[in-house]
């Protein structure tokens, strides 16, 4: 099947030959930006020949809020809440990616426990994000109840995050140098309970979808992308691994001590929607595994610091701020006028969508000279025509669902 795919894809719309009776009968359909299956405000211009899509043009930018420029004008520390709003189904992962880029630039080492907490948060966020993928894709393919089954589990994660960070979404709980506060025992217990029960709950979804003949028929062979094409179109994350490329930043460029955790990277075989689905299902199990190990480590390192001791770049402990004038000044300086050293840094993490990277460049002032966000979602959107051309209109929703992008991140 992959031989029919071509590396080159012309963005220009093929001209309509009005003398050709068949071509003249094509229909332009404007899917989005308010279309229910486009997962936000994606607009797809589709030329239909009957039910076959002969041309797809994704049109992004409806959710553009100028996040990169906002970072440059707000300053280093105040940008954290904005990172939450990039890929809003996994705010903590975005927080951590940005914080790590800043730490790399400033040369700050995050304490061991802080890194473990970060790993825990990242993996739990990944599970939550993948659950949304399962839920929304099932709705797109008509299995509406699965949406609720997956969101039930996601709600549990959000309750835990609520207990820990005080917010369900948009947590902004990561700081340069670590995380804002330590995980308490109540949160540990909640997490433990969730992680113990989750694989079993995942079985419910698995039973309803994986072996389902209709689900299989809707996904198998749909949205094929070969290994070469996946790499050429810079797909990352589950979309790349679904095509059989064993590339995961957690293994290939370990950060936060991922090399010390025991987990596997699931890869697909042919690179269709079904493979990407299976990869994400397995990734949730692996994330659960990592999170369990991280939780064990948290229990062993109780009482250790989660935020680095560095008065120049890192927030001082809140208890001290309330008591000492010096610390209050440090706090004030870090929040309002943090100046990272001159230089540039790029840090990428494996987010639930792929390689989420922050490129930051400092001229030594309190405002970043440049902040570029390498959003995996944008590359995923680019690939829609590659995957969808020549397929049926019904496949488009399966493809959009399986590419799994969040427009907040694509448009930034």
């Amino acid at each position, binding site marked *: 099947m992959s031989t029919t795919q071509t590396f080159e894809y012309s963005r220009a719309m093929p001209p309509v030959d009005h003398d050709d009776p068949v071509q003249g009968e094509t229909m332009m359909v404007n899917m989005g930006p308010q279309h*229910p299956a486009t997962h936000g405000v994606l607009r797809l211009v589709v030329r239909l020949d009957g*039910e076959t899509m002969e041309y797809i043009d994704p049109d992004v930018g409806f959710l553009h809020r100028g996040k990169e420029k906002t970072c440059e004008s707000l300053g280093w520390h105040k940008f954290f809440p904005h990172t939450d709003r990039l890929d809003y189904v996994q705010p903590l992962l975005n927080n951590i990616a940005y914080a790590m880029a800043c730490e790399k630039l400033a040369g700050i080492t995050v304490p061991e426990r802080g890194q473990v907490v970060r790993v825990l948060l990242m993996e739990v966020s990944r599970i939550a994000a993948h659950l949304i993928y399962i839920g929304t894709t099932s709705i797109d393919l*008509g*299995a509406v109840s699965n949406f609720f089954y997956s969101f039930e589990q996601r709600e549990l994660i959000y309750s835990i995050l609520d207990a820990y960070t005080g917010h369900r979404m948009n947590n902004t709980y990561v700081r340069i140098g670590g995380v804002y506060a330590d995980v308490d025992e109540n949160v540990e217990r909640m997490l433990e309970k969730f992680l113990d029960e989750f694989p079993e709950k995942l079985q419910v979804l698995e039973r309803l979808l994986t072996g389902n003949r209709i689900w299989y028929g809707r996904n198998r062979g749909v949205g094929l992308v070969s290994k070469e094409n996946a790499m050429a179109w810079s797909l990352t994350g589950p979309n790349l691994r679904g095509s059989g490329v064993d590339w995961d930043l957690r293994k290939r460029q370990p950060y936060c001590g991922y090399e010390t955790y025991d987990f596997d990277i699931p890869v697909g075989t042919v690179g269709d929607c079904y493979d990407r689905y299976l990869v994400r299902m397995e990734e949730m199990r692996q994330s659960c595994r990592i999170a369990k190990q991280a939780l064990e480590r948290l229990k062993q390192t109780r009482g250790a610091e989660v935020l680095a001791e560095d008065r120049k770049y890192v927030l001082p402990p809140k208890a001290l701020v309330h008591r000492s004038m010096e610390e209050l000044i440090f706090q004030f300086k870090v929040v309002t006028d943090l100046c990272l050293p001159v230089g540039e840094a790029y840090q990428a993490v494996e987010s639930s969508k792929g390689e989420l990277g922050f490129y930051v460049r400092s001229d030594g002032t309190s405002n970043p000279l440049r902040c570029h966000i390498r959003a995996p979602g944008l590359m995923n959107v680019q690939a829609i025509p590659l995957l969808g051309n020549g397929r049926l209109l019904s496949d488009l929703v399966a493809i959009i669902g399986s590419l799994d992008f969040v427009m907040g991140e694509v448009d930034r």
Partner: protein
Amino acid sequence: MNPLLRDILVWLVKAGVVYGGLLGVAAGMTLAERKVSAWMQYRHGPNRVGPWGLLQPIADGVKFIFKESLTPDGANRWLFRFAPAIAAVPAMMTVAVIPFGPAVPLPDSWGVPAAFTNLSVTDLDIGLMYLLAIGGLSIYGVILGGWASNSKFSLLGGLRASAQMISYELTLILTILAVVALSGSLSLRGVVEAQPDFWEWNVFHQPLAFVLFSIAAFAETNRHPFDFAECEPELVSGFHTEYSSMRFALFALGEYCAMVVMASLWTTLFLGGYKVPFWENAPWFVCVAAFCAKTSLFLFLYLWVRWTLPRFRFDQLMHLGWKVFLPLALVNLFLTGAAVSYGVDLW
């Protein structure tokens, strides 16, 4: 009293009961749909209007009436207004031939001699043909609604509906024919009377036809997993995207009425209709209750399947219809016909 007058009165009462019942059940189905889906999805469903949300259909009706009825620019106004009626009326017409109970004795009073009346609005000798002929018309509502809306999504919905209808009506008719061959009657009451006791039910004699009919019934009524005419993720509700107010409600009403009729037909053809298992001379009200119970079974199946399965893709549906169901139904009909004509008792 004139016997003719009594007959007219009886007929009016029966018609009132049947149509009231059909519309009542159709309205109830809208509530049941939400309640069942809610149970399956850890939700409560409607629970604000009336006890247990029971008055929700009425509230919906009132809301629909008060909504503005929009006609999009460029729509074919006449057809656009006409389509919902075409979609809703046939289902209401076909219910007339469904026998929902046995003959009921009419008492000897007012000087009119005692008599019996059959529990159905009418007993046509060609009831099944009438039902299929009229029931097949309802698809015109969907096609015309999709075409007249001047919306591309609606047009696609209408197109899909017409293709789907042709493919599945064939299977449906072929399975019904097998039952007809077995019963030797095109009258629905005749079909019921040919299944006197439990082991004579056609579901045991025609298991393949039973399965095929059950699946084709989903496609015939445009229900999930074959609801391509609507298909909310890609076609944004398809043929009724542009409809609002009571016109939209009529489409929904038509769909639910068609479901009720199809479920009754299913009961009549395969589950012995109003016959009560293992109780040959059951009183008529028990028979009616049995009929309602069997019909609700299939109505529940409609809901159960809808909220469990993913949706087929359109070409998969056609593949299934033409390459799997149609040959199976043909083979089934051929075998049944051969068995009947040579007098072989397959059972």
